[in-house]
């Protein structure tokens, strides 16, 4: 494979199309159908643009484009390396089902301020793709902050006191860490003289004293850890569940939290590099935090009665798989981390969309009220069960593939303890998600007030089936469609460059 850099504007078109859609949505706010057409159209065009670049990227081509000089020396540049393409493919593809789902949900739920909602949604997606494809840290930061600002209106969407508080909490967490990240970026630039992501890292041990580099790692990882919800920085995520469910589904299960996980992977793989981190020995601390989060969040999730909150805590735990995979610094664990971005996205989006469908049709948010729901909504609950099994890491569902690789990665670096943690977490996941299916299918409805409900409308139901089916197909054929498994492998190989981890 030869690396070939091609100047191509498509990455920017992919980012820009939903930005344009946001403007059109604002302008045509009064005509509902025209407005919603824009977000669907943007979703299709965006995914088309991204997927059209996949074959070439698989052959080792890198598309690159600099729109303008963002500072005196740095370009505002997007580049399609395999790592970024994994994230870009996932978010752009899932934008399609969710944009249909959002239309069904928002209309079904008679939400107010829909124009602002869809516009902010489109901008958030634009930021997510920008994060995926950024070629240097400053471009990355621009989109990272844009994502913060664009998702804030989605969090306070309900415009009540709870939503206002959640919005504030969200801003505090993300802005604080964003600024620390900025300080880190400045330091990286002064030490390394460049901000371009390079597989294997741009910093070396002789650039600064060891403790400064360790501190720098802490600063930079904080930003990712907050958005990925690593404990104890996860507080914003459960609160942010006051947002409408499509937001929880796409943004708080895919775009925002994955951007956090992706940020961790970028910092570890492309700024510091596994070999430098092995010398610094700080990745181990991150791995401990991630492991703690995996267990603790599952325990908390068990106590939640509100279905969305339970799923939120599950997200917190699952994202720490990504962080853990990155922090283990082994080739296979990094592969597992990248693939878990895909896996968790598909499964969690299914779960959230199911939760949203239940809310819209029955107005029930608590698990204890869902007795016997399986009779009225069999397809929804079946999809929910499939995705739950996937979260637990059942073979033949996509979650298994990534966890298998994570476990192998832990063995590669001689840390079998983390396999124990993975197994515990799988059992815990079963114990907090299976009861939902159990209650729905096997318990009788005590009040008998569910009989009048049916499945949600097709706008919502079909996206749920699509994502659930995909998570099974990808569980059997991980390379189905855009060869995401190969892309993840390429990314992991480029980062480790034949180095087989070891020795924190």
């Amino acid at each position, binding site marked *: 494979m030869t690396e070939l850099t091609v100047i191509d504007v498509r990455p920017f078109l992919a980012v820009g199309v939903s930005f344009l859609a946001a403007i059109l949505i604002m302008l045509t706010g009064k005509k509902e159908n025209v407005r919603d057409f824009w977000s669907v159209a943007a979703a299709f065009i965006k995914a088309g643009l991204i997927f059209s670049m996949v074959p070439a990227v698989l052959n080792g081509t890198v598309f690159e484009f600099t729109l*303008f*000089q*963002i*500072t*005196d*020396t*740095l370009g*505002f540049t997007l580049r399609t390396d395999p790592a970024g393409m994994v994230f870009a493919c996932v978010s752009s593809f899932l934008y399609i089902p969710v944009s249909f789902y959002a239309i069904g949900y928002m209309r079904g739920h008679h939400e107010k301020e829909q124009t602002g909602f869809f516009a902010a949604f489109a901008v958030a997606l634009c930021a997510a793709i920008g994060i995926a494809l950024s070629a240097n840290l*400053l471009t990355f*930061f*621009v989109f990272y*902050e*844009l994502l913060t*600002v664009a998702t*804030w*209106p989605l969090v*306070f969407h309900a*415009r009540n006191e709870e*939503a*206002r508080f959640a*919005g*504030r909490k969200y*801003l505090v967490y993300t*802005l*604080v860490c964003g*600024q*620390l990240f*900025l*300080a880190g970026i*400045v*330091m990286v*630039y*002064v030490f390394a003289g460049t901000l371009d992501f390079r597989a294997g890292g741009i910093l070396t041990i002789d650039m600064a004293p060891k403790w400064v580099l360790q501190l720098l790692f802490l600063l930079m990882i904080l930003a990712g850890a907050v958005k990925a919800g690593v404990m104890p920085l996860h507080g914003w995520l459960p609160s942010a569940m006051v947002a409408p469910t499509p937001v929880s589904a796409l943004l708080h299960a895919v775009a925002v939290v994955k951007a956090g996980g992706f940020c961790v992977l970028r910092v570890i793989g492309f700024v510091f590099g596994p070999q430098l981190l092995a010398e610094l020995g700080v990745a181990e601390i991150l791995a401990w935090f991630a492991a703690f989060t995996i267990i603790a969040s599952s325990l908390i999730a068990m106590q939640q009665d509100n279905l969305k909150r339970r799923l939120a805590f599950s997200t917190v735990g699952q994202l720490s798989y990504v962080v853990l995979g990155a922090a283990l610094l082994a080739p296979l664990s990094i592969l597992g981390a990248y693939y878990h971005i895909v896996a968790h996205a598909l499964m969690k989006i299914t779960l959230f969309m199911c939760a949203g469908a239940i809310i819209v049709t029955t107005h029930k948010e608590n698990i204890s009220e869902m007795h016997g729901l399986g009779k009225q909504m069999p397809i929804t609950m079946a999809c929910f069960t499939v995705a739950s099994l996937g979260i637990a890491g059942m073979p033949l569902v996509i979650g298994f593939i990534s966890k298998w690789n994570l476990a192998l990665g832990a063995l590669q670096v001689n840390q079998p303890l983390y396999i124990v943690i993975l197994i515990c977490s799988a059992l815990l996941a079963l114990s907090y998600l299976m009861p939902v299916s159990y209650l729905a299918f096997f318990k009788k409805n005590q009040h008998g007030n569910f009989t009048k409900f049916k499945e949600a409308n097709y706008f919502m139901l079909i996206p749920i089936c699509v994502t659930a089916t995909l998570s099974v197909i990808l569980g059997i054929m991980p390379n189905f469609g855009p060869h995401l498994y190969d892309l993840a492998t390429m990314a992991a190989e480029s980062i480790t460059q034949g180095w087989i981890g070891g020795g924190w």
Partner: protein
Amino acid sequence: MSQHFPILIVLLPLSAALLSPFFSYFHRQAGKWVSVAALAGAFLCAVGLLLQTLQGGGQAIHYWFGNWEPPLGIEFVVDPLNGFIVAMITFVALFTAIYSTPFLKKSNWLYMGGYYTLMSLLCVGLSGMTLTGDVFNLYVYLEIASLSGYGLIALGGNRGTLAAFRYLLIGTIAASLYLLGVGFMYAKTGSLNMADLGVLLQAQMDSPLILMTVALLIAALGIKAALFPFHGWQPDSYTFSHPGAAPLIAGAMAKVPMYAMLRFFFYIFGAQHLFVQHGLFIVGVLGALGIILGSVMAIAQDDFRRMLAYSSVAQIGYIAVGLAVGNLYGLIGAVLHIINHAVMKSSLFMVIGGIQYRFGEFRISQLGQICKKMPLTVTVLVIAALGMIGIPPTNGFFGKWYIMLGAVQSEMYVYVAVLVISTLLNAIYFFRVMENVFVNPPANLKEINPVGKFELPLQMLIPIVIFGVAILALGVYNGVLVNEIVKLGLPEVFLR
């Protein structure tokens, strides 16, 4: 003609200032048009001048008054740096003059003529201060700017008069201190020309008199720039000044003294001298304190204008920190922030002025759902607020970026911490405004000035939108601005 651009920038508004009441006497609107035309002319000249300096490869253009040769004669020295700043000043002045017309529609000819006299004079003073190459000439323009500033603040009503009087007392002291400093330098060297002083003073930089001069200049220019702790006059003045003139007063008036400080410390004295280093250190500490305290005070305000005023104290602190960092990136950041902050603060004052014009409201807590009534204005408000916080790609981010870069290069990590904290404090009070605008239930607002077809009269709406676009444009093109303009003006500093 084009070789006279430097003087035309000052001369056109100056003539308009004198003619404005005269024309207004015959036709109430005529004085306004004379002023606006003159300011537009000045703006075009400034842009032309900037292009001239750029074509000359950054070589400074010297313009001798009456062809008297310096150091005896007075000269204007234009390099890309101050050419850029003058272009910004005239830009803000021109659009503020257009913007303020609806506020004056009921006033009589004398008020109208007088208002535009003061407005033009303020532009004259600020442009002159930036362009001049003579320390005493700078004093003259400083006084012109101050006096017209007092007038415009006093036009804001009873509390404005009080604020103006307070500013007058402090401002006069500042001017006297500056004059004392000039006197010391003159006593040492017998020269008033900046370039000449720069050469003559080098041998005597260890004299205690220079220490005194540095201290006097920091105090004098610090007062005029509202650098903490000399900012006591500023919140009242900005809050109660004439709402039409507030964008120019808040946007440009306090920035020019900071530029003068840059000139004195880096061009005339040279930052390698011990006394200057001490001076810059103090400026940096004051700036850092101002950043924190100004931001904290801004959080405590409910009056939007007062919040902006305190935020200005903080933003001047950024410029001071940039000077204190003192390497190439620090100065780039400082200069860029002079420009950026002028545009952002002007646009914010224009926005709140617009809301005040239409609804008579300026309390943050009373702005609920105003986004429905004034969508464009609120869009600009959001852009400017993000700029003030420093979210890329708005221009506010990049000033901070360069200052931080400089601070890390010189290993002054404290300033990095201060900038980070300040950004977060900024975020608190600007996101609070946005939260009030978007989340709060609709406020009970009564239109005091009905506005017809658009959300505001076009004279107000167009400048607001132009400034909103400028914030984004300055952010996106900052790389070009730094490479093509600011860096050309700065190397002189580092040759010494």
